[in-house]
């Protein structure tokens, strides 16, 4: 079998393995292409703290300066901070340097448009055309500007959250919060935000050295240390961020990781309680959210997977909140971006306002069990797999906007190729674990059979 390539150029940006495919030449060219695309103006850049970040940053700076852009460098910061600053400074765009949940060997560029959103599919394709055409804007030395090192971006982010939500209401007891930033970009801002909200904070993994002390994704199996910390200090809640601090996972007061799917559910509960309105989530997000929206008589709309798609649908539907089941919460009143810091603030306000525990709040929702599976799959095989699934499940209703989502009598199934890695993802949700396991096992068998054929 042909080796699976480590470079992934897609509408999600360009990502690859440092030391293999993600070379400084490639990065410089993409930065030149982006500078050519958005034109000579301010570009905000920021990076997560992974080891290759400095090499990538320098490549990006060189490419942007060459294209005549004015570079505003936020240094190490969360991705949502880059998006917020693009809007605050009325910049032409931004580049976030992060491979988010990918392992340490990876890095990536994510391109932000003037609205602070990731490039839409159409914009991303235009950028790729410029990149491939290879004719980039070039300015003479006399037109080049020095890089502006922007200080105070983190303060501005915290202020933006407090301005909208305010500090936690004064109560008899301060909320006790454990935080695990995974030594990522959240390390330098999450403890400060929590303190500014008025919580008591116990941190773990808040050294921003990009050292991956745990698995990069804030999934339950990586959160042992946080769960122990919650139990040890009898915390009301535990929060875990990914490397670039866009995704958030929650640990209950009992020290149980409740799964990323419920981050958006909890945040939505607080928002709909105060300002009912449309909700948007991607196709793979738990249907517990539909039940919650129904209880508030609010419509829910589904979008393709990917932050840009969710954001686009949110704009179309004038959604009050939206996001993804991987722990990405988008609350447009503060930041039109998946923002773990906003998610934390919403959930803490929910706990304070309701006076209930995380466990109690979850118990109010109908039970849903989700299982996920991923299989290595060359991109040229994905279509074949999807055709097989389509044939096997032909009798059930299907949504074909992003892979295949099948609505089954006792749950649902989603099969799609990843935008970021050479794998195929399978997701199933049902009212019991057994049912979900049955759905995913059957779909996995179909997929394997197709790949082996």
């Amino acid at each position, binding site marked *: 079998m042909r080796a699976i390539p480590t470079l992934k150029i897609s509408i999600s940006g360009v990502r690859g393995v440092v*030391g293999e495919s993600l070379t400084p030449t490639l990065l410089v060219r993409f930065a030149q292409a982006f500078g050519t695309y958005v034109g000579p103006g301010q570009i905000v850049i920021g990076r997560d703290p992974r080891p290759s970040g400095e*090499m990538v940053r320098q490549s990006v700076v060189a490419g942007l300066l060459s294209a005549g852009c004015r570079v505003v460098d936020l240094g190490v910061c969360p991705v949502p901070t880059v998006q917020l600053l693009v809007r605050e400074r009325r910049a032409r765009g931004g580049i976030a340097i992060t491979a988010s949940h990918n392992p340490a060997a990876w890095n990536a560029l994510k391109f932000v448009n003037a609205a602070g959103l990731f490039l839409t599919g159409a914009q991303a394709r235009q950028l790729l055309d410029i990149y491939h055409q290879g004719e980039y804007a070039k300015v003479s*030395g006399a037109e080049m500007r020095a890089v502006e090192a922007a200080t105070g971006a983190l303060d501005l982010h915290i202020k933006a959250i407090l301005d909208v939500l305010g500090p936690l209401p004064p109560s008899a007891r301060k909320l006790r919060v454990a935080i695990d930033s995974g030594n990522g970009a959240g390390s330098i801002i999450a403890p400060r935000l929590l303190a500014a909200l008025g919580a008591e904070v116990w941190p773990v993994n808040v050294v921003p050295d990009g050292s991956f002390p745990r698995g990069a994704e804030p999934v339950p199996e990586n959160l042992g240390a946080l769960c122990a910390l919650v139990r040890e200090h009898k915390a009301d809640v535990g929060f875990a961020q990914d490397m670039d601090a866009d995704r958030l996972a929650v640990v209950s007061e009992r020290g149980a990781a409740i799964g990323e799917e419920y981050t958006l559910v909890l945040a939505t509960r607080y928002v709909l309680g105060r300002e009912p309105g449309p909700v948007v989530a991607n196709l793979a997000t738990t249907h517990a959210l539909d039940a919650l929206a129904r209880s508030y008589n609010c419509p829910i709309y589904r979008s393709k997977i990917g932050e840009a798609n969710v954001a686009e649908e949110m704009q179309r539907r004038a959604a009050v909140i939206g996001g993804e089941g991987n722990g990405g919460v988008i609350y447009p009143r503060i930041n039109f971006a998946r923002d773990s810091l906003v998610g934390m603030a919403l959930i803490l306000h929910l706990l304070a306002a309701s006076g209930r525990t995380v466990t109690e709040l979850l118990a109010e929702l109908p039970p849903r069990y989700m299982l996920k599976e991923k299989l290595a799959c060359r991109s040229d095989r994905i279509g074949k797999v999807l055709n097989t699934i389509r044939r096997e499940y032909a009798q059930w209703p299907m949504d074909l906007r992003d892979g295949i989502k099948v609505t089954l009598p006792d749950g649902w199934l989603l099969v799609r190729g990843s935008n970021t890695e050479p794998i195929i993802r399978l997701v199933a949700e049902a009212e019991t674990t057994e049912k979900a396991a049955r759905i995913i096992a059957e779909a996995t068998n179909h997929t394997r059979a197709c790949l082996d054929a």
Partner: protein
Amino acid sequence: MNSIKIGISGVRGVVGETFTPELVVGFAQAFGTYLDAGRVLICRDTRSSGPMVHAAVVAGLLAAGCEVVDLGICPTPSLQLAVRWLAAEGGISITAGHNPEPWNALKFVRADGLYLNATQADELLDIFHQAEFAKATWARIKTEVAQADAIAHHLDTLVRAFDAPAVRARRPRVAVDCCNSSCALLAPRWLAELGCEVLAVNDDPTAGFPHAPEPRRETMAQLRALVRAGHADIGFAHDADGERLGLVTETGEILPAEATLALAAEITLRRTSGTVVTNVSTSGAIDVIAARHGASVVRTPVGQAFISEAMIETRAVVGGEGSGGVIVPRVQLTHDSAATVGLLLEHLAQTGARVSELAATLPRLVLLKRDVAVAPNRIYSVLQRLYDALAREQVAYDQTDGIKISWPDGWLHVRVSNTESLIRIISEAATETRARELLDWARDRLGKG
């Protein structure tokens, strides 16, 4: 006209045209690959494309697994001296030296602080063209860029190398033009260390070049005015990266660029005997001076690396080029305008002589230069016309570098520039009339471009 030059002097080009970040990244990766990772020093001059080129160099070096030590804005000789001090494998100076502001360049320095020689430059080019660079994985890539103060170290070295107390005792009044470049951070401090009264002009590294960054008559009028108005004992003009030095006497005379090496040779040979090394394009005054002191002259092709290496071979006591670059071996074996300043001020202080008196002892020869712009695709055929003429007329010539023809009363040198798409013609004779005749003689045989 092509605006890229890749050769023994490094890689240089016009930013916004050929000198792209991709090209720079590629050369930085190639150099990192050539050095097999390790520690690499980098510095830049003050041209406004510096930050872009700097970022591209850092990216390329980090990607190749190098440990980058950034010296910031700093003269090239300060970097060259720091390579050994910091036990680095090499360095990259981001400067187009005397080229105008739109240009920038990378100059590659090896572990002994000297420029890559012709063979090494060829090896680097082969790696660049092959484009299979060393790539550090995430576990090995360096996460940060370190910083160091090479200028402080350069100053320490200079103070120890020269008789500073003798200069301090005289308290000379010195005018200096730093071209608003990296020498602004070195030259005034060095003069202050020597106890000089300093009259500095164009000493703001943020202000942009006030004139072409090359010490010649047209760029030194401001310095001459300062020398006259301030009654200075001497005036020094630095280029953009601290290699070349131009001189103004206390009488307000701008000395030709050729005089800097000639004075350095005169001073050095009065004190020590030994060989002088210079290139084939440099004034015959050097031969006259050497003959006076019973010394010999070794001529090399044009390019600093050739002079440095010949100085090592011959254990020469002084060397340099007619462009104003002088090598003072007690500091280092590369052009260093601050060391040249030290040599001159030390001598004037110790002997009590005036610089105009010293200049008066130099042989009076007239050296003329004419640059003929030739499209890169025409250079070969234009030169061939000259070779054909020389064969037809049975004129003997030296081919150390280009074509050098000597007559009893003068000489003529024709060569292709290392740094621009030009054919340079240089002639020298006792009178301007004769020197001009020689230029015309060459031009007639080259024909129209």
